[in-house]
């Protein structure tokens, strides 16, 4: 292809397509550390399931007529996808924005800050999908799930990832240093994980807290994940998908705007 042809093709390429340049760059880096990353993806849920599921599970006995480990495993899909997307869109994205100046380099090429933020959002969602897949594999390994039906949770893992990536990118757009992210985790993420039916059923909470939980993305994530892997009844499946999508898209829109302002100072 000649230079001119490349140029014409590239300058016509729409924003979503250009964001894939950013996804590809991050994927190439990930590929270099793939083994470590995959071991982490598999080891963490294993430790939780064995430690909490069987250890604490022995004390608890059954929840809704199932072993505790089964209940917890479905929650772990949500917890782990949330964490994966959050870390990527907070710490890693901040490193690329501020510390390594990777975004600056991209801006000197024919990419815009909207392309970059969209690319980071898609990539953080992809990382969440990897974690979700790892946990599902562990669940198959432990015999917690069987057959093809639970695979339907994978698109939801991506959706959960995009929801939390959207929120995290907004946080990153305000961050001055890594320390800022501690507030986000301690004040928002950790309390939310106890409010959303990850470790114990929502029904354990007082009525008001249950109502509040349904405004949080993680409660909807847990509802979908348990429904799709364990066949639990889902109160509002479409609403749950809509809530996750809304958090992701609104977060993305705000993050785009904020980063555009931040980088053009």
């Amino acid at each position: 292809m000649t230079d001119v042809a490349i140029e014409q093709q590239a300058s016509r390429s729409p924003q979503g397509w250009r964001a894939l340049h950013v996804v590809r760059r991050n994927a190439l880096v990930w590929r270099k550390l793939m083994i470590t990353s995959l071991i982490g993806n598999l080891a963490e849920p294993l430790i939780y399931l064995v430690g909490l599921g069987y250890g604490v599970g022995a004390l608890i006995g059954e929840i809704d007529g199932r072993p505790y480990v089964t209940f917890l495993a479905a929650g772990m899909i949500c917890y782990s996808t949330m964490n994966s997307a959050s870390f990527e869109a907070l710490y890693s994205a901040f490193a690329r924005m501020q510390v390594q100046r990777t975004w600056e380099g991209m801006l000197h090429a024919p990419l815009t800050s909207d392309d970059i933020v969209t690319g980071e959002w898609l990539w953080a969602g992809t990382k969440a999908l990897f974690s979700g897949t790892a946990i599902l594999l562990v669940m198959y390994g432990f015999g917690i799930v069987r057959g093809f039906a639970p695979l339907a949770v994978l698109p939801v893992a991506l959706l959960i990832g995009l929801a939390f990536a959207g929120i995290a990118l907004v946080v990153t757009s305000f961050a001055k240093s890594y320390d800022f992210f501690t507030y986000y985790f301690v004040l928002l993420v950790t309390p939310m994980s106890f409010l959303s039916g990850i470790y114990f059923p929502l029904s354990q909470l007082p009525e008001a807290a249950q109502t509040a939980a349904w405004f949080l993305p993680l409660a909807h994530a847990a509802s979908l994940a348990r429904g799709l892997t364990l066949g639990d009844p889902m109160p509002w499946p479409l609403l749950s998908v809509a809530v996750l999508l809304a958090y992701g898209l609104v977060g993305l829109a705000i993050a785009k705007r904020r980063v555009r302002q931040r980088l053009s100072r």
Partner: protein
Amino acid sequence: MLAQRVHAAHVYSRPMLDVQNLIKTYSGRSVVDDVSFQVARGECFGLLGPNGAGKTTTLRCCLGLIAPDSGSIRLGDLPVPQAAREARYRVGVVPQYDNLDPDFTVTENLVVYARYFGIPAREARARAPALLEYAGLGDRGDAKIEALSGGMKRRLTLARALVNDPDILFLDEPTTALDPQARHLIWDALRRLAKQGKTLILTTHFMDEAERLCDRLCVMDAGRIIALDTPRRLIDSLIEPVVLEVYGDGVAEWAERVARPLAERVEVSGETAFCYTHAPEALLAAVEQTAGLRVLRRAANLEDVFIKLTGRDIRD
């Protein structure tokens, strides 16, 4: 190739970069204050000025990374910032701080960056050896970024800026923090680019760098252009040709009493009197007669022009 470039130079007689009445303020303070200049195709144009003069802001406006409050910019005949992204297909940038990708090797840095321009990986890998050769990194393709010296990183950044074969290169302080050997390597590389007909726009506060490389210089201070001409004409028109630097005991008092009447201009800075003159003989004789004074005689250079225009105060 050369014939094509010469031909192209005739076809595109319009400037490569045209900046008109550029104004940028940050919370009420003008950082760039009514700046206008044009850079012709194939020209090496220098932006000079003390810290905070507005050089980098001007550069960032030209690249469309920040929107000016008013004024117009055309880069490669495209309006900026409106079509800045499209304009950047023909632009290479060497930023002030290295932003090489530490997660990739030297060659991977070039290939990944080329992808941002829509250049396929296969083609980028084919171009990489020649670019690395050019940057004096021919045998470093597989090296990690952290293993490179400061000078090597700079040269790789320059090679990366050439990955799209740009018409115009923006270089923000390309040799700051480099040792003399490394600076000379960068200068050589930039001269070769100029010879190939690339348009170069660089900021610097090294006067020798500006004098050596640039066809024309624009001196900025406090957001304004205070001089714009060839280095030679700036020196000839703005400053006396001979400088005597006199230092020793009681030089300040001596400068007031003896040097003032003999030189066109005298500046005392610390323990040194800078005497600017067309006819140094009388002054030299006067120095000889005063015990404890030493003198350095030299031709006026761009640094003298710069100091005259922007003053001796420290800018932080």
